[in-house]
């Protein structure tokens, strides 16, 4: 659900579940097939949920420092509550993203960068199937990295917030932070296949959503996950930490990347929490 706000950018090596500072070269175009599987559980109630997302993404380099992205997902959600299973499927919300590389420092075999990003999640998804709750989402963030031919170090912070949905409820704000070290075990020639290994640490602070109807309370929330606003100071904050081993394999202009996100710390357990999350993307750039 958080990744629904975040088109995978195709310009460079970057973590699977969080952004990196690279954009794409001027007039470059990238296409991606993004796939995600997630399994969640509410330990207090015993409810479970599995979610499968398949999305297509596109990115365009306006300049060498400014890139625009689009992402259109299709989701299938199976929710189990009290032994009763419900399946919902349909097109999810369209999201857009802008990345602006505001600072860059280059040297022999390395590149440092700081990038601002901002995006919108538009309420275009299926509402009848409960894939979208009709709210508009916003994301803003900052990402920085040292990318070296041998090692990588990424860091990012993203803030997600939403407007009210069609049922009057408002998904909670989310603050996500990522720290990712990585290594390239073998430095080959430019035309050789290339492998990079990453270990991504993902932290999420989520506020509880505000709901105006009992019907809304029974509905599995699709967007934002948390509840309430950090700015308004309402709602409870959940804090989860996860680790994700990842691999990025590329050859020339084609990349396959994937990872498994496993939570290892969950401060609050009275809501749906991830048991695991798997992502696998195919990216081609021209």
């Amino acid at each position, binding site marked *: 659900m958080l990744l629904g706000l975040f088109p995978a950018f195709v*310009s*460079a*090596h970057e973590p699977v579940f969080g952004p990196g500072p*690279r*954009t*794409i*070269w*001027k*007039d*470059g175009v990238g296409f991606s097939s993004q796939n995600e599987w997630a399994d969640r559980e509410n330990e207090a109630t015993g409810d479970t949920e599995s979610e499968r997302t398949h999305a297509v993404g596109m990115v365009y380099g306006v*300049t*060498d*420092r400014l890139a625009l992205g689009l992402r259109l997902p299709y989701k299938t959600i199976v929710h189990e509550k009290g032994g009763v299973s419900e399946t919902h499927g349909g097109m999810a919300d369209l999201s857009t993203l802008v990345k602006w590389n505001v600072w*860059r420092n*280059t*040297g*022999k*075999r*390395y*590149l440092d960068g700081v990038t601002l990003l901002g995006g919108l999640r538009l309420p275009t998804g299926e509402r009848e199937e409960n894939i979208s709750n009709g709210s508009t989402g916003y994301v803003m963030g900052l990402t920085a990295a040292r*990318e*070296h*031919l041998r090692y990588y170090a990424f860091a990012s912070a993203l803030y997600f917030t939403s407007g009210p949905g069609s049922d009057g409820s408002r998904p909670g704000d989310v603050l996500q932070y990522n720290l990712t070290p990585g290594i*390239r075990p073998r*430095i*080959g*020639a*430019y*035309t*050789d296949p*290339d492998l*990079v290994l990453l270990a991504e640490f993902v932290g999420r602070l989520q506020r509880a959503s505000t709901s105006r109807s009992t019907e809304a309370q029974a509905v599995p929330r699709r967007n934002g996950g948390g509840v309430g606003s950090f700015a308004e100071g309402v709602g409870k904050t959940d804090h989860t930490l996860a680790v994700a081993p990842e691999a990025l394999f*590329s050859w*020339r*202009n084609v*990349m396959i990347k994937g990872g498994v996100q496993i939570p290892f710390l969950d401060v609050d357990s009275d809501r749906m929490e991830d048991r695991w999350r798997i992502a696998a993307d195919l990216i081609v*750039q*021209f």
Partner: protein
Amino acid sequence: MIRILFSSWIVAVLLFAGGIATATWAEDEAPAPEERVITCEVDGLACPFCAFGLEKKIKKLSGVKKLDILMKEGQVKIHAESDADISKKDVEKAVKDSGFELKAYKDSKDEKSEQ
């Protein structure tokens, strides 16, 4: 018989000499064009996937025949036609638009002019 043998030898020698002369003459008349090599030091070459954009931009320059991107050395070698219309400014722009930085530029055409 002796006259025939002697004539044959003369013809053979003349043909051999003529062949060598022809080959030499052919070389003098149409020499193979010399290749122009532009060697650049490029900063920021940290991943091959990202460097693909650099390959695309440079190969679009007029007269480029071949390109070598040397990741470990941080170098790019452009093999171009000897009369290719490529300037340092063109290469610098291609490198910048790819997201990298040109640190040094050496053109074999400039070195030959100095000689």
